[in-house]
């Protein structure tokens, strides 16, 4: 008994120490990254100077006028592209063209710091602080890309110098293009994806994080009232303030964690049990049973969730059934208008089983087929019974293989928007006129705060907290995953 207790305790300790370790590694990783970055900058600066001294006269001129190093060697098209980039960049930066009355370019950089100065009146419109912030970020991005193009211009010119020095010919434009389909194929393949990710993932994420440090809220609508940087004020408000966000933050956070925990483990265990049941030798019609459950994956979730919501409504068939059977006297409200928050929470967890079990079942079925049969053969030779083989081979194998999945699905449940929003809308409401109801998760609350209430800065703070939770989970799972370890071995 004592042994078992100690073992359990050891496991718990292990779990926490592995969380701590992953934080430590994360911090160390950041430190290492920074160090590498500084060293890289230093190395580059040295190389920059050396190249300037060592390069031909054309390379030296290319430091001022991009493309010269290519023109001089007959790479007309390439040189023209570089020159065009430089002219275009300088043109945009100096003239600072305006979009929606807000400039992009050098002016955007100072606007990025002030977030607008003109308090409008009847004759002059107010500066749009949000656009100024956005264009500030965009301008910084443009400068970054220009620096990359500038560096590539120099290294290409210097490469030409070296080729000529060795008595070789420089590449023609056609040869350059061929390279892009062979030795530099990764550039061709990655460029569209990277552009998409920069514009639709990196830019929005940076922008969202920045908003958390401003007072951009319902009292400061963009383009009508100026807003400004406020430092860590919003984060302080969450912990010490009086408003909705401060009062409801910890209840919502704790329900989010409770929800994610129960939703993950109930689905996981029930899904595995179902898979084992369907895969039992004596059960016939395996394909039929599996198809029944796949059906619920295939039906768009918003449809099935709204159908379930109507079934469970006061006038729906379930309540009718309960009344007919005499189990209740009055219709029960299960979801958003439930009397008791516990009822609503239990209902969403139960419905989540309906949604989630089929996924786990499918995945586990696949894994069951992959268990190496020689394990069972060896066990049989050793005289193990079926039950022993099941307990000592099947179960450990499944648990071992699916641990990363368990963590990713925990992270997924923290951000599972659809189930809560479509079933209860976050309700039932909590007294005091707060917008975050008793089934609201951080993400549904974030949605309400930003889209319904226009409290952008608070929404953004909630978003950053959600990121911190999911990032911890992802780091844990990533470090444990086979993919990561193999990747290391692969290198």
């Amino acid at each position, binding site marked *: 008994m004592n042994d078992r207790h100690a073992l359990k305790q050891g496991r718990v300790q292990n779990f926490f120490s592995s969380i701590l370790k992953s934080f430590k590694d994360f911090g160390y990783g950041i430190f290492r990254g920074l160090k590498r970055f500084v060293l890289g900058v230093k190395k580059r600066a040295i190389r920059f100077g050396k190249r300037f001294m060592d390069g031909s006269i054309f390379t030296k001129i290319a430091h001022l006028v991009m493309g010269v190093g290519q023109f001089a060697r007959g790479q007309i098209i390439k040189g023209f592209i570089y020159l065009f980039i430089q002219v275009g960049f300088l043109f945009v930066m100096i003239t600072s063209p305006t979009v929606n009355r807000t400039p992009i370019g050098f002016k955007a950089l100072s606007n990025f710091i002030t977030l607008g100065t003109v308090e409008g009146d009847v004759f002059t419109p107010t500066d*749009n602080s949000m*656009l100024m912030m*956005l264009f500030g970020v965009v301008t910084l991005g443009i400068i970054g890309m220009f620096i990359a193009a500038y560096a590539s211009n120099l290294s290409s010119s210097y490469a030409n110098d070296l080729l000529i020095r060795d008595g070789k010919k420089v590449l023609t434009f056609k040869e350059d293009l061929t390279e892009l389909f062979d030795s530099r*194929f*990764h550039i061709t*393949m*990655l460029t569209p*994806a990277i552009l*998409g*990710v920069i514009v*639709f*993932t990196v*830019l*929005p*994420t940076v*922008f*969202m994080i920045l908003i958390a440090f401003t007072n951009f809220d319902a009292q400061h609508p963009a383009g009508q009232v100026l807003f400004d940087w406020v430092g860590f004020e919003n984060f302080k408000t969450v912990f010490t303030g009086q408003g909705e966000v401060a009062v409801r933050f910890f209840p919502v956070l704790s329900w989010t964690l409770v929800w994610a925990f129960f939703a993950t483990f109930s689905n996981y265990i029930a899904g595995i049990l179902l898979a084992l*049941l*369907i895969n*039992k030798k004596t*059960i016939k019609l395996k394909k039929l*049973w599996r*198809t*029944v*459950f*796949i*059906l*619920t994956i295939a*039906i*768009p979730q*918003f*449809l*099935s969730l*709204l159908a*379930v919501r*109507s*079934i469970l409504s006061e006038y729906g*068939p379930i309540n*009718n*059934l309960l009344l007919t059977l005499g189990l209740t006297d009055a219709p029960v409200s299960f979801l958003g208008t439930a009397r008791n928050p516990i009822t609503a929470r239990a209902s969403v967890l139960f419905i989540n089983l309906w949604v989630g079990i089929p996924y786990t079942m*499918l*995945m586990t079925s696949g*894994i069951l087929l992959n268990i190496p049969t020689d394990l069972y053969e060896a066990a049989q030779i050793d005289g193990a019974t079926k039950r022993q083989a099941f307990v000592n081979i099947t179960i450990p194998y499944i648990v071992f293989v*699916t641990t*990363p999945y368990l963590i*990713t699905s925990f992270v997924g449940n923290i*951000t599972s928007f*659809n189930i809560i929003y*479509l079933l209860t809308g976050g309700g039932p409401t909590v007294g005091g006129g707060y917008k975050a109801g008793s089934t609201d998760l951080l993400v549904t609350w974030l949605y309400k705060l930003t*889209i319904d209430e226009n409290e*952008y800065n608070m929404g953004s703070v909630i*978003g950053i907290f*959600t*990121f911190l939770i*999911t990032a911890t989970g992802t780091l844990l799972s*990533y470090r444990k*995953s*086979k*993919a*990561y370890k193999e990747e290391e071995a692969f290198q």
Partner: protein
Amino acid sequence: MRNPDAQPKFKSVKRQEQISTISGYVTLVIMSIIWLYPVLWIILSAFRTERNDQGQLIGIVVSNYFPRAVGFDNFINLFNNTMFPRWFMNTLFVSSISFVISTALTLSVAYVMSKLKFKARKSFLNIALILGMFPGFMSIIAIYYILKAMNLTQTLFALILAYSAGAGLGFYVAKGFFDLIPNSLLESARLDGATNFQIFKKIILPLSKPIIIYTALLSFTGPWMDFIFARVILGETNPELHTVAVGLYSMLYGSQSTVDPNRFTMFAAGSVIVAVPIVALFLSMQKYYVEGVTAGAVKG
């Protein structure tokens, strides 16, 4: 010699097995009923044509599970009196374009990360991991601010970009698949003078049918299943721009000023029209889907 009570023990084991099989079937049947109950409910509601005292279709949620009268009235209503056909075409348009873009992006990134060696490879993998930690849901709110700032919020193209532009980050499952293709195959092709592009086109792609179908299936059905991206980006006010999800939701829970008694059964009719092709697609591609799900889970 075996011990004397081996025989009866064997019998009881058999008996036990029978009991467990029967209880297994009972469990499966009960679970199937629970799982199919809402599905059947939508189908029944779609064909439900009961009328109230005033002779109008009752479209609100009713308590009797099985309808007392059936017909196609809800479908006719849906097509004549709502913008459902428009929503259907919108969704088809968005999903057809975004699935081509996202499949191409996902596969190309996965191939590069799996089979090509270049300097920044490791850093790219790490950056992709960190970016993936931000739930897509959060960046969608920021995308909403950005598009709103540029007065671009309400176009289907914005939605297509939102669905497909970030696809480059979802390469892990496909990369896992490519990792299993032996490198020796590529090296011998390289010795024969094939370029990386030719290798991708002539060797990798023909071998990758399962993962191409899996990726394409997920990105095609995504817009049909998604509710929140479409609602945030296209807004709730202009029914011309709804996808099926947003349109059907607003039909049920939209502006209360236009209460239409036929809404629930019409919603159900719309659901059937949307769900039938998607379900058919899923079931016919079941094999590839299961393969992908398993691989994705195990790879982590």
